[in-house]
């Protein structure tokens, strides 16, 4: 049993055991589940730390070959786990954050009647996520990719007594599958295009230069469609806000820290391919930019605490895609890294508030809560997301900004506006929640929910140190470790300093403005909850109109009109004609012997005439 095998299968095993116990003995005590769930994710978290340590310092690649999945024709798919730098980097935050959220969830889900089921899904999710990360070839990666989507579907609809939740799950899965459609098509095309046998990432990148450039562009585009679906970018973002129907730990883990970033990971994984298709890279940058801006605008008019966070996730993912789009892969990954921490922390804090205040989620109803511990956590996370130095996201976001500045100034402008908007809506939420004349008191937060937040807070503050840019006499250690096919940008140090200061200054200005507007005022009450922005620019309605309604009409048309009316109608009317003809003949057989004699006579006479005609030559 190699390290990677245990790392991968520990969560699966615990998921399976929990599942078995849930099915067999419904009276099991809760601590059994807790123990199993934490064992599974904890073990893989520990091993993940070990693996990334190994990779970072020893510069070694761990490989484990499990079995041959498929070998038919040239299509050889080996299930091989491979922890290269990129995978190790992903492991570094995926597994530990998962573990922390597991711990948090034991508090959040305490005494829930589906406690066991929840952790079975949760561990299963970790398994699929690790499979996605560790996969050595795109097909296995796709299995993990679909698997996380599936578990996400199950978890969004976790409270299935309300059918609406399951519809949100359906929406998530279906939209994701639209992306998967692109992903799968891209993989198939890619396989057929590369001349070498085998389908591992190494093989693919070796054969890339042989592929026709049009074909390559198409493949790159389709891959990006997959990423769009998973990472909630325009136009496939509609599922993410609805996905908040799941329990908050789910939102924290799946829809903030890990799964949604899989798209970014995938694009980074295919970096050599994307470097050969600059058009698609530009497209990615623009899609990311518009998604970020779009989400940020919508977030300014949201009132559901989780939805605000969901849109901010989408916006941050947009930042990552911008970075990817200009070829700054490791920068994007680094932002993903920090994002995992602060977004998980935000969600956890939000979850704690929700639990403490009787499952209210509307910030207008939650005004003026008093919870100093949570406030500090929230504040740190919010400062991080707005990229105030020296919090970690400052480093990651600043790297993105300078890359954009060096590459595409118009995208930089969008990103700049977006980051100001981010500050606005995040602090709007914070001020409305905590700075109010009214006062609310909730139940105290459980310890098991608070403890996991602490390390995350620490990471929020200090994780930036891992990739300090040159300008602060750092050495970009993460970027060097990842060793991706980054494109290089050069921005003079003076300009960069200027950028940073400007950025920080404007952000602080926005925070002050927000404070004036929302703290200790009722401005939030006067905002209108209709109009373009609050209704998400009617995108949902548009999709309903164009896709759903059309499909339903089409379904009706196919089934009722074509199948039943046209084809069945034709066949039935054929049968009817037979029946009619049969009736006609039956009428002739009316039981009246006279008529029978007439028929006989007619037959006789015609026979006679025929004979006479044909034999006339003999006469």
């Amino acid at each position, binding site marked *: 049993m190699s390290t990677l095998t245990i790392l991968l299968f520990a969560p699966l095993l615990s998921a399976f055991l929990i599942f078995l116990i849930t099915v067999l003995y419904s009276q099991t005590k809760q601590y059994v589940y807790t123990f199993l769930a934490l064992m599974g994710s904890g073990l893989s978290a520990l091993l993940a730390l070990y693996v990334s340590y190994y990779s970072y310092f020893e510069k070694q690649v761990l490989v484990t070959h499990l079995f041959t999945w498929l070998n038919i024709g040239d299509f050889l798919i080996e299930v091989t786990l491979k922890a290269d730098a990129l995978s190790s980097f992903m492991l570094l935050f995926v597994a530990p954050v998962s573990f922390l959220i597991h711990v948090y969830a034991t508090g959040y889900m305490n005494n829930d009647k589906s406690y066991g089921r929840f952790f079975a899904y949760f561990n299963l999710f970790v398994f699929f996520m690790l499979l996605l990360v560790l996969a050595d070839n795109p097909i296995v990666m796709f299995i993990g990719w679909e698997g996380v989507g599936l578990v996400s579907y199950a978890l969004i609809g976790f409270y299935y007594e309300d059918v609406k939740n399951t519809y949100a799950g359906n929406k998530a899965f279906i939209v994701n599958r639209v992306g998967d459609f692109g992903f799968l098509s891209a993989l198939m095309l890619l396989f057929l295009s590369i001349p070498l046998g085998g389908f591992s990432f190494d093989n693919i990148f070796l054969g890339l230069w042989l592929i026709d450039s049009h074909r390559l562009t198409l493949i790159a585009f389709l891959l990006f469609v997959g990423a769009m679906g998973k990472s909630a970018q325009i136009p496939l973002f509609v599922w993410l806000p609805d996905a908040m129907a799941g329990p908050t730990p789910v939102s924290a883990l799946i829809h903030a820290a890990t799964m949604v970033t899989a798209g970014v990971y995938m694009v980074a994984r295919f970096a050599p391919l994307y470097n050969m298709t600059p058009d698609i890279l530009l497209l990615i940058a623009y899609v990311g930019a518009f998604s970020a801006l779009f989400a940020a605008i919508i977030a300014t008019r949201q009132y559901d605490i989780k939805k605000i966070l969901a849109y901010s996730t989408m916006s941050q993912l947009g930042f990552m895609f911008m970075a990817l789009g200009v070829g700054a892969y490791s920068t994007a990954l680094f932002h993903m890294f920090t994002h995992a921490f602060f977004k998980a922390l935000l969600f956890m804090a939000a979850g704690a508030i929700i639990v403490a205040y009787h499952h209210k989620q509307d910030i207008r109803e939650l005004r003026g809560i008093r919870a100093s511990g949570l406030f500090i956590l929230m504040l740190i996370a919010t400062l991080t997301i707005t990229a105030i130095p020296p919090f970690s996201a400052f480093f990651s976001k600043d790297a993105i900004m300078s890359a954009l500045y060096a590459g595409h100034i118009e995208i930089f402008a969008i990103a700049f506006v977006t980051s100001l908007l981010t500050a606005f809506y995040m602090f709007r939420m914070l001020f409305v929640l905590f700075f109010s004349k009214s006062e609310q008191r909730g139940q105290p937060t459980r310890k098991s929910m608070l403890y996991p937040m602490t390390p995350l807070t620490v990471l929020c503050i200090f994780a930036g140190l891992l990739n300090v840019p040159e300008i602060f006499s750092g050495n970009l250690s993460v970027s060097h470790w990842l060793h991706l096919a980054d494109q290089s940008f050069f921005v003079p140090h003076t300009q960069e300093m200027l950028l940073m200061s400007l950025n920080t200054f404007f952000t602080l200005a926005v925070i002050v403005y927000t404070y004036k507007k929302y703290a200790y005022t009722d401005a939030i009450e006067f905002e209108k909850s209709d109009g373009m922005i609050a209704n998400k620019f009617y995108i949902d309605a548009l999709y309903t109109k164009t896709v759903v309604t059309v499909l339903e009409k089409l379904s009706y048309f196919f089934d009722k009109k074509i199948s039943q009316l046209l084809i069945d109608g034709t066949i039935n009317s054929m049968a009817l004609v037979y029946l009619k003809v049969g009736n006609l003949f039956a009428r002739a*057989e*009316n*039981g*009246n*012997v*006279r008529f029978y*004699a007439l028929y006989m*006579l007619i037959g006789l006479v015609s026979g006679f005439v025929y004979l006479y005609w044909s034999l006339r030559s003999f006469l």
Partner: protein
Amino acid sequence: MLKGYMILSIILFSIGIVGLISRRNIIVMYMSIELLLNAVNLSLIAISADLADSSAQVMSLIIIAIAASEAALFMSLFVVLFRNRASLDVNLFTILGGKE
């Protein structure tokens, strides 16, 4: 003259068939049948005279006997049918059609 006999026989036979098929009155139908038999008899006799062979005459004799027995049956049929339906219309007797 033989040809004349044959032609007459044919004409009578045709008339008999026309009567048999066209009429709904069962008594007329019966008489049409008798006409058919007579037409045949006529041709038989003509041929027998032509060949000077009396076998054909015997044959027509037998036909006449059969006609007689037929007559007996028909008469009783008339009685029964008329008693049941009070009509001589054959269209009323369409049990063969199976529609009742």
